Structures are given as structure tokens and as C-alpha cells.
């Protein structure tokens, strides 16, 4: 019985994520354009890009190996699976217990791993720059993320996202300093991981400061489409992660009636929209920073996470 209900829910969730991701990116761009007094492309532009890329043929560098061709699919799959594990509009989804927050981080990690390898594969200097910087950023972002998880796990007594979300909704966690720290840390990490300003600029090319774009420089056609889509899914993933942890309202529970799910979807869309607007504003407000100031940026995130946990320890009732 449960299976019959959970399975479709899970799959709709996954498909929904897939479908919504480009829209989100488009929306963010639109917002930025408005903020910069431009009209900007349509919200649906990303879909068109993807479609066009998919239709184009792949131009493969001579020195590219099989890994180069497999990587996009792996990256996409890993990201997508990770997204499927995040309770976007409903907790206790069917697969939610098959992996916890750490596993999600690790999945994104493996996506990044293969992307970085692909960057090195062709043997161009740009690819090298991209992957080496990407790994540098990641090697700081991941621990910050883990520390954030640590904080949550201490509060919720679990690393299971659904459980965390439920605790956040129903239990009276109350406002905590460490939670605030965790939130900030998470936001910083999210910015870094998605290669947004000020860490990286998704809109640039031919610029030595680029990171993510440098890695995928050699990609074209359907491969590029996969990677783009993966990136968009990742952005969505992070936004909904923040949403479900720090604004867990309206999430449908395991046994809630059908309308609850609809409501959940609605709430989710709302959260995403706000998140996108905030992100756009932030990006327009700040400027890209030098690569070697990034460690300080992320070090701050790491410190915040650690501080949050320590505070939690100290402020623990005994």
C-alpha cells in the first residue's frame, strides 16, 4: 500500500526537480537583469539553450578519452540522485532513508570529482586551472558543510534530512545562535559550490578567474547540456536544502493527504522564488573576488560551522 503511494510521489519529485531546475536558473538571471536595469532573456531561455545543445553534434578533442565522454552522465546522475534525496516538498519520501545528509554531500563530491577529472582529461591549461581551483574550493567547502551537518545533527539528533526537517517543523527548537551560524555557513558554502559571484562568475568566459566554466571548456553538444543541467539541478538542490532545513514550513509528511502534497509543492515554489531573488540581489550587490581570497571566505564558513557546534556543546542543558 505504502509502496504504491510512495513510489509515484518519489518519481514526481524527481521529475519535478528536473523540470524546475532550468526554470530556477532562468528566474535568477531574470532577476539579476531587472536589478541591473536590463530586460534580460526570457525565464525559459535555459530550456531553449538545453534543447539547442542537445540537438547539436558533439565536437570531441583528439586527446579526449572515454572518461571524458562518460563523465557528463556520471555528474548528472550523481547530482540528480542527490537532489532526489532532499525533501523538497514532502518529507519521508521513499528513498529519503537510503542516504543521509553526509551521503548527499558525498554524492555532490563525486560529481565534482569526475568533473575535475574531465577538466584534466583533454590536457589543456584552462582545464587544469579549472579543476585545480575547483578542488581547492571544494576541499574547504566540504568541511564547512560537514560542520553545518554536525550542528543540525546535534539539534535534531539525526543526520537524516527528513528527520531534521520534521524536528525543525514540529519540535520547539527555538532560535539559536548556532543555528544562525549554521545558516550563514550553509549559504556561503552554497554560493561557493554553485560557482556564483563572488567566488566564480557563471556568466563569464575567457577569463582567468573562472573556475567552473574553465573545467567544462572543452565540452559541447549533449555533453555540455548534461553538465549545464546538472549545475542547474545543483543550484536547485542547495536552495531547497536551505529551505527544508531553515524554513521547513508546509512540507507534506509521510501520511498526509493528497492536498498536502499540492500545498507542499506550492510552498516549495514560493521558497525557491524568494531564495532566487535573494541570491540575485546578493550577486548584483557584490563583486567577484580574487581566487586567493576565496580560502578566507570559505575558512570563515568553516569557522562558523565549528563555532556553531562548539556553542551548541557549551549551551547544552545538563
Amino acid at each position, binding site marked *: 500500500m505504502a509502496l504504491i503511494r510512495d513510489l509515484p510521489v518519489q518519481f514526481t519529485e524527481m521529475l519535478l526537480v528536473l523540470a524546475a531546475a532550468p526554470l530556477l536558473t532562468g528566474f535568477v538571471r531574470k532577476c539579476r537583469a531587472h536589478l541591473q536595469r536590463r530586460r534580460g532573456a526570457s525565464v525559459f531561455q535555459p530550456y531553449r539553450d538545453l534543447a539547442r545543445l542537445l540537438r547539436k553534434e558533439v565536437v570531441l578533442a583528439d586527446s579526449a578519452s572515454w572518461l571524458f565522454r562518460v563523465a557528463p552522465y556520471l555528474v548528472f546522475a550523481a547530482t540528480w540522485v542527490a537532489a532526489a534525496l532532499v525533501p523538497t516538498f514532502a518529507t519521508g519520501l521513499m528513498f529519503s532513508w537510503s542516504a543521509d545528509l553526509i551521503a548527499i554531500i558525498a554524492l555532490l563530491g563525486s560529481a565534482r570529482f569526475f568533473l575535475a577529472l574531465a577538466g584534466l582529461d583533454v590536457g589543456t591549461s584552462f582545464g587544469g586551472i579549472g579543476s585545480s581551483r575547483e578542488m*581547492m574550493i571544494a576541499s574547504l567547502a566540504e568541511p564547512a558543510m560537514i560542520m553545518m551537518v554536525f550542528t543540525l545533527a546535534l539539534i535534531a539528533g539525526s543526520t537524516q534530512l527528513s528527520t531534521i526537517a520534521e524536528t525543525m517543523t514540529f519540535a520547539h527548537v527555538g532560535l539559536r545562535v548556532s543555528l544562525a551560524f549554521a545558516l550563514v555557513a550553509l549559504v556561503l558554502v552554497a554560493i561557493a559550490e554553485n560557482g556564483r559571484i563572488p567566488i566564480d562568475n557563471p556568466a563569464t568566459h575567457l577569463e582567468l578567474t573562472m573556475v567552473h566554466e574553465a573545467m567544462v571548456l572543452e565540452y559541447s553538444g549533449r555533453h555540455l547540456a548534461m553538465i549545464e543541467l546538472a549545475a542547474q539541478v545543483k543550484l536547485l538542490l542547495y536552495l531547497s536544502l536551505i529551505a527544508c532545513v531553515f524554513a521547513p514550513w508546509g512540507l507534506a509528511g509521510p501520511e498526509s493527504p493528497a492536498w498536502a502534497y499540492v500545498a507542499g509543492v506550492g510552498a516549495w515554489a514560493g521558497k525557491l522564488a524568494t531564495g532566487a531573488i535573494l541570491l540575485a540581489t546578493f550577486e548584483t550587490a557584490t563583486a567577484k573576488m580574487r581566487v586567493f581570497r576565496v580560502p578566507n571566505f570559505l575558512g570563515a564558513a568553516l569557522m562558523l560551522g565549528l563555532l556553531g557546534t562548539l556553542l551548541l556543546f557549551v549551551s547544552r542543558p545538563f
Partner: protein
Amino acid sequence: MLSVVQGLMLSVVLACIAVLLAVAVLGIVIGRRSLAAPMIYGSCTTIASLLLVTAAAGLGADPTDVVLPLGLPWLGAHFHLDALSAFFLAVVNLGGAVASLYAIGYARQEPESRRVLPFYAAFLAAMNLVVIAADAFSFLLAWEFMSLSSWGLVVSRHRERENVRAGHVYLLMAAFGTLCLLLSFGLLAGPGGAYVFADIRRAHSLAVAPLVLILALLGAGSKAGLVPLHAWLPLAHPAAPSPVSALMSGVMTKVAVYAFIRIVFDLLGPPEWWWGVIVLVLAGITALLGVLQALMQHDLKRLLAYHTVENIGIIFMGLGLALAFRADGMAIAASLAITAALLHVLNHSVFKSLLFFGAGAVLGATGERDMEHLGGLIHRMPQTAFAFLVGAAAISALPPLNGFVSEWLTFQAIFLGPALPQWGLWLLIPCIGAALALAAALAAACFVKAFGITFLGRPRSGCAENAHETDRFSRGAMFVLAALCLLLGILPGLAIDWMSPVISALVHARMPVQHDIPWLTIVPVARSRSSYNGLLVFLFMVASASMAAMAIHRLASRALRRAPAWDCGTPITSPLTQYTAGSFAQPLRRVFGSVVFRARERVTMPAPGDAGPATLSVEMHDIPWEVFYAPIARAVTFAAERLDALQFMTIRGYLSLVFFALIILLAGIALWP
């Protein structure tokens, strides 16, 4: 019937070890023959796999004892096969069997074969002996014999000076470790000389327990490679022939872990909470320093050796947590922590052997260990590349492979830390968590570098240009291990259940039974708390990846055109323009190096109009070496210099020495009441 078999197991093990020793002797005799290598490695493979089966089967069995009239005359040599021994016996022989298989193929490229053969078999035998020895004397005998035989393997290529030096440092550290263990056993046994483990266990309640802990930490740590006792490891492991490097890194360090567990968890009574603190601090430093050092290496095998240091750190994190939990009577948590540690022991031995095999294959195909001269090997040796990739993904803790599982369990154990009463641990454990996370992330970066620079890109030298795929034995060995990486990754529950007797024997508790949970999920403590299902994640990824691929190939274009690399429209064909290992690591060196290695970069630009090249020079310091080892060496040399003067005295001088000795003693007599 079953009990009879179980009773026989230890005898079987001993017989196998005897055969191994015989094989070693055989190696001395027929070492020069061309057939010797296949024969000996083949027999090692068979014996080791036999031992592996025995151990795997004997894990659940009741402990059995055998006493041989050897060793200390009035004690005899005691051997004991309990769950812990069986587990490590399995780990040792898993590595041993696969390494021997690999060595059959590898032997063709081994110039000093007859210097390797005898020591190889002896080395295997010694490691097996260590894990089943049950009295201090035979334990240390086997332990030191293990060091000696591996020393023989390290210096087998004695013509390179640095190999001999590596061997020397190694032997010294080994002797140091042995003496430390010897002292700790001396304390455990007491003046009466009760060297049998059983008696020591009975004695318990030691006032000197902390001292024993420190000594065990020094002794086992110096073999396992805990910072700052790791100095020999990155020297010795690369110097040995590749299958032996795999054995030393993947297996011998585990034997050291065994020694630590045996002494601290088994022989030494109930722990204090701050023991955990010591171990954890060391472990954290080890993990971080190990991985950072690894990042800075360009020598493939040395990089792997430093990663061994890092993983040993992770293992000891688990052990330290287990100590702390056990001290506070949290049996379940302790069982979780130690399971994580043991699982990581198993996993690390698997993927580290795999990686060393890969490095050995590269070395054999190109004659190069320096990554800066490699590249593009994925085209010439695709199978090796694939196996190495699996190993790299596993050691970087990427799901759904096995490395992730054990690190995930370690994280779970860390998350249980807050339940501990001591505030010292509250402050420490989050930092350990951060260290672990950092280490994992850096490891990923490091292996992107290792794999990317070695196998990807375009060849950076002629030897990489015309490399060739390695032989089939080696490939077989690598694929076996790669398959194990995946299996242990997606079915960890089975492994956890398999090793549960060990855990329950050590901490009198065990993790919840895993195999009856649907979908083979693993649940450390409670379902609601956390759970991980490697199998599902794996299926998921495969499914979605293939779905995406299929959909695209069905609906979208399938066209593909080869063209020269674009590289922003300015492609430079020379492979020297590629990113090198050094340049890949440069950002991280900027970030961490300045603190950890006191790294200094100096760029000298030519004057405007000067056509000369700009140079970038980097100087780095190996802090542990400079802080701990160099001073000792200096002190000894200094003392030797000074005392050497005594060599050149006149006879009269010597006479006066005698004279004054006499006077002093007489005065002593005169003043003695």
C-alpha cells in the same frame, strides 16, 4: 564435527605458516632459476588464499589455543586464534594472496628477483605469525622478524643510495617500535615475567596502565605511521618492489593496528576517558598532515605512502572514539566506533593495495614514478587506468564505493560524541570531525591530481608516450580488488555482520544486526537517526545515468566529430603547456603550505627587455623531521665526535683513566659507612 574443524583451524594456520617459511628457504635455494618466481609467488598465492578461507570461516568460531615447545623455554610459544586474530588474519591474507598473484606478473620486470623471493615469503609468514602469537616473546619475535624481512625487501634494490638510506631509517624506527612494545610488555608482565597474554589478562588492574598505553602508542604507532613517527614510511614504502609496497602499506600497517588493539583493548584493563583524547589528537594530526604531505608529492608511490599515513589517522580516530566511549560505558557507541575503524582497516587494505598495484603497473610500463613525466596513460593502458580510477574514487570516499562507508560510520560515531560527559571531549570531537572532513576533501583533491596527471591529459615524456598495458596477472589482481571495492561499498551490512564477533569480543556489544534490514541498508544506531544504503544509491546512479544516456541517444543527436582541442581558441600543441602536478597543487599549497610546511615561493622575473626566463622556486620544510629527527641525529653525531677524542689518548692517558677510576672507588670505600 564443526567443533573439530574449528579446533583444527589454528593448526592449519600454523602449518601454512611453516610452509611459507619453507618456501622462503626454497627461495634462497632456487632463487637464480628463471622458474623460481612464478613457482614461489604461485605457492604464496595458494597458501595465502587457503589461510584467507580459514580465517574468514574461523571468525565466528570459539577461540582455540596451541602451545609449541618453542620460544621462551619455560613458557613455550603460545598461539591463539580468536575473532580479532581471525579478522586480521583475513585482512593480512587477503592482501597477501592478491599481492602474490600480482607479483607473478610483476616478477618479470624485477631485476633483483632472487633478493626478493626469500624475504617475500618470510615477510608473509611473519605477518601471519604476529596476529596469532599469544605471548609477548613470540609476538615480538614475529614482529621484529616482520620488520627484518621487510627491511630486506626495502634494500633489495641496494644500488640506489636512497633505498639503502630508507632501509636504515626504517630499520631504526622498527627497532625503536619493538623496544617500546618490549617495554610495554615488560610492564604488563611484571617482574615475575608472566609473558603469556592469558596471564596478563588475568592480572589486569595496572597502576602503570597509562605508561603502557603511551608505549603501545609509540610502538604500534611507529609501525603504523602515526605522526610524528611516520618518517620512515614515505621513504621505505616506495623503495620496495611494488607488490611489497602494497603489502607494507596495505597490510603491515594493519598488523600494527592489530598490535595496538590487542594491547590497549584486550590486554590492558578498562580505559580512562583521557586516553581517548591522546589517541584522537594524534589521529587528527596524522590524518591532516598525511594528506597535506601527499598533496605536495610528485612521486606516485610516495604520494600513496603518505595517504597511508592519512588513513591510519582515520583508523585511529575510530579507535580513539571507541576508547572514550568505552571508558564512559557507552558500549553501543564504542561498538559503532570500533566497527568503523575495523571496516576502514579492511577497506584501506583493499584500495591501497589496488592503488599500489596500479602505480607498480605504471612504473613497469614507463619506468617512471615521477608524475611530471607521465600523462595520457589512459589511452595506452585503459584497464589499469580503470582499476586505478576505482581505487582513487574509493580512497576519496566517494559513494557508492567502500571508502565512503567506513568514513560515514566514523562520522556517525563522531556524532554520538556529544553524549560523552567530559567537556574536554566535547571540545575535541567536533575538531576531529572537522579534521576528518578536511582530510576526506583533500584526499579527493589529491587523487584528482594523482589520476588526472598520471593517466589523463597528453603524455609528458617519451616513456609515457610508448607505454603498454601490463600483464594479465597484474590486471587480474587489480580487478579482483576493484570488484571488492564496489562490493564492500554496496553491501557493507554483510561485512559488518561478519565482523560482529570481533566487536562483541572487544567491547561486549555490537551494532544492530544488519542483514535483515530491507534493501540491505546499514543502520548504525537507529533508523530514524541515520541510515545509508549503498546498494540503492548505486542502482539509482546506474539507472539515472543510463536513462539519461538512453534518452539522449534516442531523442537528441548522436553525431560526434573529432577535432583538435579548442582551449579558448588558442591551443598550444606542446604537452608541456599542460597543468603539472606541481601547478595543480599550487592553490592548496598557497592555502595550507605556508602554515604546515613553512613553504616559501619566490618568483624572479627577468628585467624588462631581458629575454631570460622567469623562475619560480618553492622551498618547503618537513616539520616533523626537523623538529624530532634532525636534533636527535645531530645530538648523536655530536656525542660521537666528542667521545671519539678518547680514541686518540696516549697510553698514559688511559692509565690515568684507570688510576682515577681506582681512586674514586677507593674514596667511595673510604666514605662508605
